[in-house]
């Protein structure tokens, strides 16, 4: 049941790198407060392009994206202030330490110093990064760099998290910590739009799924409802996904 005020609303979005060859074709979906939604699709399906449009890194050819009812053109600062992003590959400032990344993020989002300090301490413990807090990011392993990205997003505590392939490079304990924390974040009322190829993992955590194929949404809804659409009732997400993407476009 759609709430009157979704955190994220994407309406009839078409877009891509070239006006003549859109990657996304009229996609519409929403994410409600306290909801975790999985955005899944094959390589090149349009997941990252969708996220770039939500982040404001790409302008839509058609359609609209709003976060908490605000579009980016209306109120860019408020729009971005409601978003946190974890990219697929860590994007860090080589000249800053882990602690300084968290501090820069907290300052940028207007988080109070007290909240920043308590959150940074909790996150560094949760992701076992206490002894790396004063290391320059250039001295970190890939998995640790990914942890810094996750910690930065979580230190800001926005209303909506856009998380792109968060498990890449993380060790098993890191994956568990992330999943636990995502559940905690969700329970606190924040929303998560999560993209991942590890379907067996996200199957048990996401409330709904959006299946993208060749730039179009071929199914969206709860596990049960997309299983119905794929004619694979009771099957795991991987089988549903296979049926939806290998069986041609369905809506």
């Amino acid at each position: 049941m759609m709430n009157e005020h979704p955190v994220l609303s994407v309406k009839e979005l078409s877009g891509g790198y070239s006006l003549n060859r859109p990657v996304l074709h009229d996609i519409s979906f929403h994410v409600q407060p306290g909801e975790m939604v999985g955005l899944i699709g094959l390589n090149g399906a349009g997941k990252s392009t969708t996220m770039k449009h939500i982040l404001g890194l790409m302008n839509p050819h058609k359609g609209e994206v709003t976060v908490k009812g605000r579009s980016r053109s209306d109120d860019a600062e408020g729009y971005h202030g409601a978003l946190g992003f974890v990219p697929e590959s860590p994007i860090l400032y080589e000249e800053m330490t882990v602690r300084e990344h968290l501090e820069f993020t907290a300052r940028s989002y207007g988080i109070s110093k007290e909240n920043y300090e308590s959150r940074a301490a909790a996150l560094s413990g949760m992701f076992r990064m206490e002894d790396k807090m004063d290391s320059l990011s250039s001295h970190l392993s890939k998995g640790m760099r990914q942890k810094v990205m996750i910690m930065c997003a979580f230190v800001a505590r926005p209303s909506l998290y856009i998380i792109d392939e968060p498990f890449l490079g993380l060790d098993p304990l890191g994956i568990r910590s992330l999943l636990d924390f995502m559940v905690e974040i969700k329970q606190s009322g924040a929303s998560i739009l999560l993209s991942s190829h590890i379907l067996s993992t996200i199957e048990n955590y996401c409330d709904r799924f959006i299946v993208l194929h060749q730039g179009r949404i071929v199914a969206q809804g709860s596990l049960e409802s997309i299983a119905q659409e794929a004619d694979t009732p009771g099957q795991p997400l991987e089988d549903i996904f296979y049926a939806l993407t290998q069986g041609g476009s369905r809506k």
Partner: protein
Amino acid sequence: MNLSELFAKRRGQFWGQVLPYLGYVIQSGVAVVFLFLLIAFSAWYTSLVMNVPPGLPIRWIMLAILVPLAVNSSVRTYLRPADTVFLLPQEPRMDMYFAKRRVSGVVYKLMLLMLVLITLWPLYIRSDDQPKMLLATVLLLAVLKRLSSWGSWREQHIVSRPAAAGLRVLRWCIILLSAASWFWYPVLHSVIFTSLTALAYIAACSVPSRYKVAWERLILLEKRHAARVMMVLSWFVNVPQGEQRVYARKWLSRWGSGIPWNKGSAYRFLLIKSLSRSDVFGILLRVLVLGAVLVWVTRDSLASAAVYLAALMISGLQLSSLRKVHKESFWLMVYPLPEGSRHHNEIKLLFQVQLLWAVLLWLPLLFSIMSDPGFVLGTLAAGLLTVWLFRASAIRSVKKEEAEEDL
């Protein structure tokens, strides 16, 4: 695969990227300023050679100018990260690839060293009571330069970084001492000393284990060299910024933590961290120390004002490159920073740092304030005007950028 051709092709590609910008460099006002400074320096140097002050510490001057040039032995390899996959199978043949780097790594730098030596030579023979022969000095410096190039290349391939750092210090020491022995001691003594230390250094270099090709190290160094070329170009035109070298500088880690805790100052925090750990800050420190020493040495002449203003302009140019560091920064597009805070913080920080440099560089002139207060205070006023002009230029650039963004 012809590795020699591959090196030449890559070198051509890199300089093919750089050359189109040189036209803009020549056209830019800063290039004219440099030309003016060169002419002013030539006039000042000619006058110095004609009227050499008594007791000029010429041997120390020769040492201070020639040794860094003799030691500096960076080389371009044009290696890329993908080479660890695609060129790795060619490792036994990589000598062919690196053969041409010797030309740029040794010959061009040797030519620069000789040019500086020839420029200094008239001052040297007029100041030193027992000057050495030019040809012999050229030969000695060429040998030291070659030794340093060989040692530097060897250091990059050593497995243990602490051992490589130790050998680097040793290389500096032996070249410094050899050059000093040349200017202070009889030729025969100096030649014996230089030969023995060089042999000892070569022997020391052969001890640590080393890679056939230190792929990761060379790729990292190549990135830094390319970034430096782009950084120099960025003083004049907008160019893509490469990966800059980062220095931990723990003694500066507290800088920035005291700025106001609000969104408007968030970018200032990032900018301070970028400045304090950058190559630029190291250059600024060197300009400050060298400039202050030269201002102090020349404090009783007009040359001190010229040195002061030149050092301040170099500082301003260096600082201006910081404006481009985060131009394409991903997080500045995603984070909710207030509109206009980027440009505002850039202009403010660069102005404050250059203003501080203007005061620090001027301090040595205070020794002359009693004898010539008008000159000392006038120099400070000229410095402050220079800082203000740099700020005005930065504001103009920002307005131009904003107008372009609005289009």
